[in-house]
């Protein structure tokens, strides 16, 4: 079996302030196999989004950031790569969908322009006509109507949901081997969200794109992910196959997260305990595929 697409080993992250030091990630270990869909679930402040930024290499060079541990992308340790080599990976071999589409798109350029730029990361000599055609077919796939008008529009002329779908299309257009998706559905309608997840799932199967899906909502994750990691305050508290984590949640925090989701069967608003036992040791269901020699 080939090397995992993403292997994170014992990753620590701290932010150093003037007087204090805040540890954000505590020995996080996580793998994503080629073509696998893995979800990382936690509340705001759990460290799930900074983890994605570390994988992209967007955080390491900032002042006050201390990182230890190791991140491997397709068998290469990322810290060994030059800045240029890392930069070349982004947008081509690994791409990211951020939470807020309006701040991720450049307000000064049309969607068509930005799409062209993205496609050129894979094919530097791509002409604008070809880029236009490719972009159009990708916008079709994310259920955007009237693609020519959208390509000629600026981000502010489109709705938030529309921008989010544009972002998704751009992130997938270069057939990356790893897609980091940070709550991509939050700005979308439930129906569009379902379509988007379906599209991401299909793509992962078609081209072997592995997906690390970051979300605060276990409900969204269940139908999407093969495996799930639950993160709380920078600690992985539970991991395993999706069916095991949902069928037999072992950690009190995972149980609370599951209980908190309103059910369409109508059990009423859940009555949550004020205190959750966080001293409970992490629960790792026997995952099989995750255990790598």
């Amino acid at each position, binding site marked *: 079996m080939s090397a995992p697409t993403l292997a994170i080993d014992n990753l620590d992250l701290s932010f150093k302030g003037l007087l204090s030091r805040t540890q954000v990630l505590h020995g996080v270990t996580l793998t994503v196999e080629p073509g696998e869909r893995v979800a990382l679930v936690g509340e705001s402040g759990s460290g799930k989004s900074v983890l994605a930024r570390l994988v992209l290499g967007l955080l390491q060079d900032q002042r006050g950031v201390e990182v230890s541990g190791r991140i491997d992308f397709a068998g290469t340790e990322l810290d060994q790569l030059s800045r240029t080599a890392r930069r070349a990976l982004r947008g081509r071999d690994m791409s990211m969908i951020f939470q807020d589409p309006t701040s991720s798109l450049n307000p000064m350029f049309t969607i068509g322009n930005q799409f062209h730029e993205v496609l050129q990361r894979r094919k530097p000599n791509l002409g604008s006509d070809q880029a236009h055609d490719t972009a159009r077919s990708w916008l079709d796939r994310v259920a955007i109507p009237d693609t020519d008008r959208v390509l000629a529009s600026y981000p502010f002329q489109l709705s938030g949901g529309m921008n989010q779908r544009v972002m998704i299309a751009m992130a997938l257009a270069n057939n990356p081997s790893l897609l980091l998706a940070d709550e991509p559905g939050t700005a979308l309608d439930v129906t569009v969200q379902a379509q988007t997840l379906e599209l991401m799932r299909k793509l992962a199967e078609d081209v072997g794109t592995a997906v690390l899906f970051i979300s605060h909502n276990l409900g969204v994750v269940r139908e999407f992910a093969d495996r799930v990691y639950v993160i709380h305050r920078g600690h992985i508290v539970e991991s395993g196959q999706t069916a095991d984590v949902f069928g037999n949640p072992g950690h009190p925090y995972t149980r609370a997260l599951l209980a908190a989701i309103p059910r369409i*069967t109508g059990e009423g608003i859940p*009555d949550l305990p004020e205190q959750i036992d966080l001293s409970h040791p992490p629960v790792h269901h026997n995952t099989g595929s995750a255990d790598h020699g």
Partner: protein
Amino acid sequence: MADSVLSAHGLGKTFQVGKRHVVALADIDLSLRRGECLAVVGESGSGKSTLANLILGVHTPTTGEIHLDNAALPAERQLTHRKRIQLVQQNPLSALNPKRSVRASLRLALDIHGIGTPQSRHDRVNSLLSDVGLDPALADRRPAALSGGQRQRVAIARALAPQADVIVLDEPTSALDVLVQARVLALLNTLRAQHTLSYLFITHDLAVVRNVADRVAVFENGRLVELQTTSDLFSCPKADCTQRLLAAVPVVSPSELALRDALSKRNDHDEP
């Protein structure tokens, strides 16, 4: 209807965009009963927010009327009307003034609507905060120094401040973490009973609707396509749009999955 606190009669709104006329809402007849939680669901662009804006008086209707206690509301709302219909928005960080402390924000609502005497308002702020489950010690903080759930509680307290009887909740929990969402929903339920509030609960999350709403109004392309009690809607959804929304609800338990499948299968048979 005798027990209706707020009602829409032939309500419609058309926006002019350049030379085009865009019908955002057409022919809406709807009533909100006293003490009821009426959910308004639909996809983006279905007219949910336009309905909220018309009810709040942000926009004036193109056609039709809105009645409060069976009296038509004028196009220019008076303070007494505004006082009775309040709003809680999706994102409390943008709804609250970042430069005002919690106390100042709540105090302003009391001052504007002339609730109590100036002396009693200090105590009133504290009691509002404890109503929404916040420690009055947080009153001197600014929104940035609060968590997302605490901020939303402040926004709810501000909506309660003028002693409103109708609260428009525009996706009040969709920006919150699930654990916080569950607590805020429980709070909203308690407050509704305590203060005999009527909620117009705008959302696209049908799982939330199932557990908080008495009735559900489904909107599609500016029209009201279905209005049922919550239990009827979840046993026998009629409109295509409702079925689409139901099919897209993320589910976590096998019993939910079975229900969702049953609803969509039943509908497959119904179709010719």
